């Protein structure tokens, strides 16, 4: 199981919960499993081409998955995925 941190903007999809658990051995699989468990996620975080939307950041523990292998990044036991709105700071 992988823990997923959900930002406030998406908590309407999780019944208000800021943290849920899903199965998945890669970032992409885990996010698809998230959509299967809580319908609507895919529409909100993926663009038409199936990649992450421009203003959605996904972190595996401390690292932006864009610095790793993107959606193909493997997930090890005990790691946490965080979905974070990109528009912040500066």
């Amino acid at each position, binding site marked *: 199981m992988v823990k997923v*941190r959900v*930002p*406030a*903007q998406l*908590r309407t999809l999780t019944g208000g919960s*800021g943290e849920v658990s899903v199965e998945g051995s890669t970032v992409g699989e885990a996010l698809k499993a998230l959509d299967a468990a809580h319908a609507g996620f895919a529409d*909100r*975080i993926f663009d038409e081409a199936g990649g992450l*939307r*421009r*203003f*959605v*950041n996904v*972190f595996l523990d*401390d690292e*932006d998955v*864009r*610095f790793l292998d993107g959606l193909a990044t493997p997930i090890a036991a005990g790691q946490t995925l*965080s979905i*974070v*709105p*990109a*528009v*912040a*700071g*500066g």
Partner: protein
Amino acid sequence: MDFVSGLRCRECGRTYPAEALHVCDYCFGPLEVTYDYQRVAATMSRERIEAGPRTIWRYADLLPVSDAAPVDLGAGFTPLVRADRLAAELGLGELWIKDDTANPTGSFKDRVVSVALTKARQLGFKIAACASTGNLANSVAAHAARAGMESVVLIPHDLETAKVTMTSVYGGRVFAVEGSYDDVNRLCAELASEQPTWAFVNVNVRTYYAEGSKTLAFGVAEQLGWRTPDHVVVPIGSGSQLTKVAKGFAELWQVGLLDEEPSVRISGAQAEGCSPVATAFAEGTDAIRPVKPATIAKSLAIGNPADGWYALDAIRKSGGSCASVTDAEVIEGILLLARTEGIFAETAGGVTIATLAKLAGEGVIRPDERVVAMVTGHGLKTVEALSGTVGPTATIAPTLDAFAAAMGAEYELTDEPAPRSA
């Protein structure tokens, strides 16, 4: 009263009421404040502005909040200095420095924070928070103190000493985070989901905050006699300031304050050790690839710039350019501006001046253009960058002989009288 008609997603166009929202609930795109420009145009005039306070609030009709007593330390309306000596060095013609080192806490951030906290207070927030590379931290801590709000400021642990002191002195809570600015920013973005009762000025109040940067454009145009420059050079951290400078010039035209439609080329300035926007510009791509910053220009060290794409778009649409400069060039830029114009800028100002010099050398910025360079922070904030570079000419005993010896061979005593005015 303000003239805000609402918030609108820059990506998908969905609209929202003017509340504490910064991203579109649907696609996470940034929200932009929209105004009823017809009503602004009917109210705003050069005379009304010129009769207003000598702060950003003289432009209140184009700001997203109206308050008879805003959260204000006097930000804005900083000097626009004609820079003939610097222009001569760079082979340019009409060159001006927008000297935003003169703001209350020494950087342009006072513009955005004054707007953000005034709006936050109106929305009912009691606590002001932010992620910062230093300048924003200084300004949030100071303005929160002024407003009687609590502050919670998060900064990277390795900031310059002055920026840490200038934040801590105001009595709020300051957290030095073991990580880069991008790590701090991520933490704040996550905190904002958990602490919806705090006003994170560059997260949940960011939509309003960012609007404060338009006042740089408003001030420049007013100080040029309601004319716009042909070319401006703007440093890029998150890219927000550059985007809002473009919006500011466009709005002045839209509400009828300019005689001629502006055609302002906007060029971006980055440090080579953190240049995701300059890289995308050079490669001709739309994609901003995040980077891990390594530069002395810490106030611009944002590896994943939230408005990078919009800054790139504004640069391209304006016919401007974007370049990056090395840390050595940043130091040279600081020294050049100080030596020619008497203005001491922080490292971000060094980035701006070095980029100005580079683009002038390449002929991108031309001698026939009226040029404005945005110098956005004071040099006292980043003195570490100059350690070992500048210092006393000599350390001497308090005697005439020691002075003469230190002055060297060309030093002579003279019989001439002191100069006297006629």
